[in-house]
């Protein structure tokens, strides 16, 4: 999986800014995408491209349980969020709904990867290649069940 990075050097990016409350009544996924990240970055919708990744700090997706958040990012074209850590409901929504990959990275990768860098993520090797800087970083492997759900393409496709 290859894509370029939109970086937010910020901890606690919460679901209220990823998809603000007034849009919770909307359940048309394409419509939700138009409002993704509206609380943090007004230009997100115009700059995001299919296949992009978001890079952020600690506790990404904290706050409300709204699945609208990973849905809005996914339908904007985001294939993975790389962060130092994730809030639990955002993480499970992303994986179980197969909207995007939540990838935990270390401090070194967080600091080293810059806005616009092109990355190649290989979840079989737990490796992230920075093609722009020609460097490689580790990703935290998915726990066993999470890896199986990701491989199956979401919770409903997973057979326990």
């Amino acid at each position: 999986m290859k894509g370029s990075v939109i970086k937010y050097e910020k901890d606690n990016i919460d679901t209220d800014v990823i998809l603000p409350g007034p849009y919770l009544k909307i359940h048309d996924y394409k419509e939700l995408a138009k409002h993704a990240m509206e609380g943090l970055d007004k230009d997100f919708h115009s700059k995001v491209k299919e296949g992009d990744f978001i890079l952020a700090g600690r506790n990404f997706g904290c706050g409300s349980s709204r699945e609208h958040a990973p849905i809005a990012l996914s339908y904007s074209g985001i294939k993975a969020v790389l962060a130092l850590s994730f809030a639990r409901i955002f993480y499970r929504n992303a994986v179980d709904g197969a909207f995007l990959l939540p990838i935990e990275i270390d401090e070194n990768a967080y600091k080293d990867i810059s806005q616009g860098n092109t990355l190649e993520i290989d979840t079989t090797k737990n490796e992230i290649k920075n093609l722009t800087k020609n460097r490689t970083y580790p990703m935290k492997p998915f726990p066993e069940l999470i890896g199986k759900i990701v491989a199956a393409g979401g919770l409903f496709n997973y057979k326990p």
Partner: protein
Amino acid sequence: MGMNITEKILARASGKTSLTTDDVVFVNVDKVMIHDVSGPGVIAVFEKLKKQGMKIDKLWDPSKVWVAEDHFVPSADKISAQNIVLLTNFTKEFGISKHFKYGMGQYGICHTLSHEEAMVLPGEVYVGGDSHTNTTGALGAFAAGLGHTDVAYVLLNGKIWFKIPPTIYFKLNGKLPNHVMAKDFILKIIGDIGNDGAAYKTMQFGGSGVSEMSIEERLTLTNMTTEAGAKSGIIEPDQKLRDYLSARGATKYNEVHGDQDAQYEKLYEYEASELEPTVAKPFSPENISVARDLSSIELDKAYIGSCTGAKLEDLRAVAKILKGRHVKIRTEILPAAISIFKKAMDEGLLKIFMDAGVMVGPPTCGACCGAHMGVLAKDEVCISTTNRNFPGRMGHLESKTYLASPLVAAASAVTGKITDPRDLK
């Protein structure tokens, strides 16, 4: 090795005799809740699955499902009105009888109904399509919030995966002073451990200070475990809980208690006498300060509402302050359920509020999540008994929300500045 209450509930529900922290297991669910945001979200998941060829004609057990209408009610606009129709058709189609319809008997905020109506009982596994589902853990149940896909999975399969959480134990020694509420205690805890201080973990509360607390005050503690990133919050059952549930017609359930030698990841101890009225400043619940240090902050509005801060005892605390006084800023009080609204009316609280010049409104999540019914304008500053103050949470991105107890919010409404209730003349 002994197990704590959460491990025991999850072991029972996953058919295991013992569990180890971080084990990932499928857990059988006893109750599940959806509301007017997560319900249509679940319906959208069902539609997607049907398009992929899945046949969906019945739920795992409609008698274990209950429904609330609370976020965009009374209907804020055409889309939210349509969502209520969608939800109503859904409950009809799948034979869900426990649907608290807005304006029809009992209605209000889902988490408030969970305890007002004893929808969840001690020892149960309860999941809901809302992050503050944690609230109900004060009834001695495992209670956790989920997203739409997970709730849809539960509705069809009756189970869901959980990673067994480690438990952090918060012990409160001694009775809270009169000017301090459970809200001050939980804000202090979040300030100490941070927004992700309990991420993926369970927060359990105990000690003499928690035993002394009413059930409604305990619910404030578990409610805001979500703001520390916790998977769940829990308090062991006692006689107060049994009395509370019995008054609501619930007498048959299987209480679960932790073993004497139960394991906890960490213990935090607090002395009740040392706690102070505490406020979380914009833009994060962990950004706390004692109320007295903020006495120069000028306010535009006070909001007393939500599952966190508009239970009957919250309203009684507000009435204690507002009795015989007038508010200096716009103040809105929205009891969290219509049963609480009625009790407040019977006790004369609503008259006290209206004599003080307050707007009294119907139960709704409304402005707490920035949806409608009292959202904030650019640069407006609000003191609120709700649970979150992220940018834009209650309205404009450049509005500011200070989170506080009902006592502090009411005292601040009287002076127009952030006020410790002890300093009110």
